[in-house]
């Protein structure tokens, strides 16, 4: 997890099944990003506490705490997410882990809702990787997909 103040930006290169979660408070000019790899920390034990950004269920509260510690106000927080694609499809195989992207997206959205953070933009799913950059000047998340160009959300 990384938290910055304006005018710095936040970048994650080459998201596949993972989710880039951005929480931001425009008035306080603070934003943070987590790189979520897995939906759920149950079964991870102590490790989930050491690296909360890895799991959707622990990343959301941990990133909320982190941006608030840097001056954001919880009631003003908004979220944007991107990622969660399924890079490979193997028909007929027992490969739940290859569909982890959609579970990551679903769980991240559910956790944001549970914590009362509005999701102001999202670009998840599909089968292509994404590179994301969040600007604290425009408060836009730029999502680049190889061969499909760039979108601002």
């Amino acid at each position, binding site marked *: 997890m990384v938290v910055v103040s304006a005018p710095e930006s936040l970048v994650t290169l080459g998201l596949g099944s993972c989710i880039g979660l951005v929480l931001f408070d425009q008035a306080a000019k603070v934003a943070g990003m987590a790189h979520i*790899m897995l939906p759920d920390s149950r079964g991870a034990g102590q490790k989930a506490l050491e690296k909360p950004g890895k799991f959707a269920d622990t990343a959301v509260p941990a990133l909320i705490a982190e941006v608030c510690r840097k001056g954001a106000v919880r009631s003003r927080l908004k979220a944007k997410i991107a990622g969660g694609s399924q890079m490979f499809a193997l028909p007929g195989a027992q490969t739940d882990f290859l569909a982890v992207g959609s579970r990551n997206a679903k769980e991240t959205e559910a956790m944001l809702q549970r914590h009362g953070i509005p999701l102001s933009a999202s670009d998840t799913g599909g089968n292509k*990787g994404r590179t994301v950059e969040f600007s604290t000047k425009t408060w836009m998340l730029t999502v680049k997909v190889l061969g499909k160009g760039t979108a601002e959300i």
Partner: protein
Amino acid sequence: MDLANFSNLQLDAMREVGNIGAGNAATALSIMLARPVDMDVPKAELVSIYELAEYYGDPLTMVSAVFVRSEGEFTCSLIFIQEEDESRKLVDLLIGQQMGGMDPASVPAEMRDSALTEVGNIILSSFLNAINVLIGGTHSISVPGVAHDMLGSILDVVASIFGQSGEHALIVDTSLKVENVEEGVSGKVVMLPDPGSLEILLGKLQVL
């Protein structure tokens, strides 16, 4: 098993497994292309899942990757990964070799992709067969999947696989290089053992 406690002896054993697998994969590729195929000394390394995206260089590099999953006594994922240019050269060679001098440029993209998937599948299956002969195990291999995307996004999938059980990925990889062609054509066979099935493999290799 917890990869954090993996010993150097065990890494050596995994390197040897990589050597045996890659030798068979190189032979299969060599037969398909009717050209010599050279291989590097295999590597076996533990990599932090948070540093995986940069492990093979710039995460934005465009690559093609063929992925299979093998399940049995020893369960693992395997990826045949190439820079996009290299995979284009490989498909050109394969089509030239197997389709009686047909102009590779005239072959539609879907067929090229199908050829790439199949050559990847044969390489990875040969790799796995050698390992299963070594440990006397049986396995079933999935249908192959293929992706053309950023290196970082492909490795992101690997991070998720290993993230389930810890903070490190065990990567066993070997570079293959087709000789007797201009500039050569190279690719990397990457084996990613499921941590849960390593005890069986290491037990059979008597390094548990």
